[in-house]
């Protein structure tokens, strides 16, 4: 699985990186640090990636599932 943060939609609410601190980090202005490119989700972080996706008020987070 990969997680993708839409750089045009993220406004820095910060709820995703609070729920998934080991997966997502933030920059000095409070946005998710890595935006606009897929981030690999380690197996033990899948649950947190799903929570992060569901907590974004901007709908800026999408999950890319690889089968």
């Amino acid at each position: 699985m990969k997680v993708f943060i839409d750089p045009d939609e993220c406004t820095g609410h910060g709820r995703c990186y609070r729920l998934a601190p080991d997966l997502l980090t933030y920059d000095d202005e409070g946005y998710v640090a890595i935006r606009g490119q897929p981030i690999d989700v380690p197996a033990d972080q899948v649950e947190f990636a799903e929570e992060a996706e569901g907590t974004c008020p901007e709908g800026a987070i999408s999950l890319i599932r690889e089968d």
Partner: protein
Amino acid sequence: MGIDLSHADRFLVWVEDFFRGFGGDPEGQQAMADALQGIRAYWVDALEERRRDAVPREGDIASYLLGAKYDDERPLTDDELLDMLTVLVLAGLDTTRAQLGYMFRHLALHPEHRRQLIDEPELVPSAVEEVLRFYTMIFGDGRKVTRDVEFHGAGLKKGDMVYGLVSAANRDPRVYDRANEFVIDRKKNNHFGFASGPHRCLGMHLARREMQIAVEEWLRVIPDFRLATHEVIMERGGGAMTAPLDMPLEWEVAS
């Protein structure tokens, strides 16, 4: 934010007078107008004092805005500066206090949640988010339509103003499990308590931190408390917000 803390008392009175003016009586509206005038005059003076500075003052929002550019093109006009600083005062002081009021009412009425937060303090952040979802004190907000669009059968034109009742969205059963229940450890909580989009609440990180610290520190000292009245708690508000007028609490003091 760069203003003298000793001026805080003035701001508190202005903000209270301003929001009470939403009640609609002529006397209140006069006090509201006077308060607005007071806040703007304060910032006119503060800006004047800072214009002469060669470099922006550290941690000083008025000073920073004087040097800021709109879309990297032009400096902000005096009216824009005053509007922003005034909104900052109005939006910053009343909201957190009101939201804290609703949070403490909830905790006064739910001993099981007090107990849970004392036993599992790591739940405080999600409890704060749930307070914002469940007791949304800025319950609606206006937005301007940026392009012609049909929304659920309603034709909207570019430039139309629309009103979003965010407190209803925050209890949408299509989005939330147990939407009408306070779920203290709710995780996927994409509520609009701070609105969304480019105009989402500028102070949300500070507000959250204030709420988290308030509940942690309070419960450390006063783990058990209750409402000190059986009367209905009166609220004031306008088209967008609601705030309890007071929130009387009582507790036992160990002798």
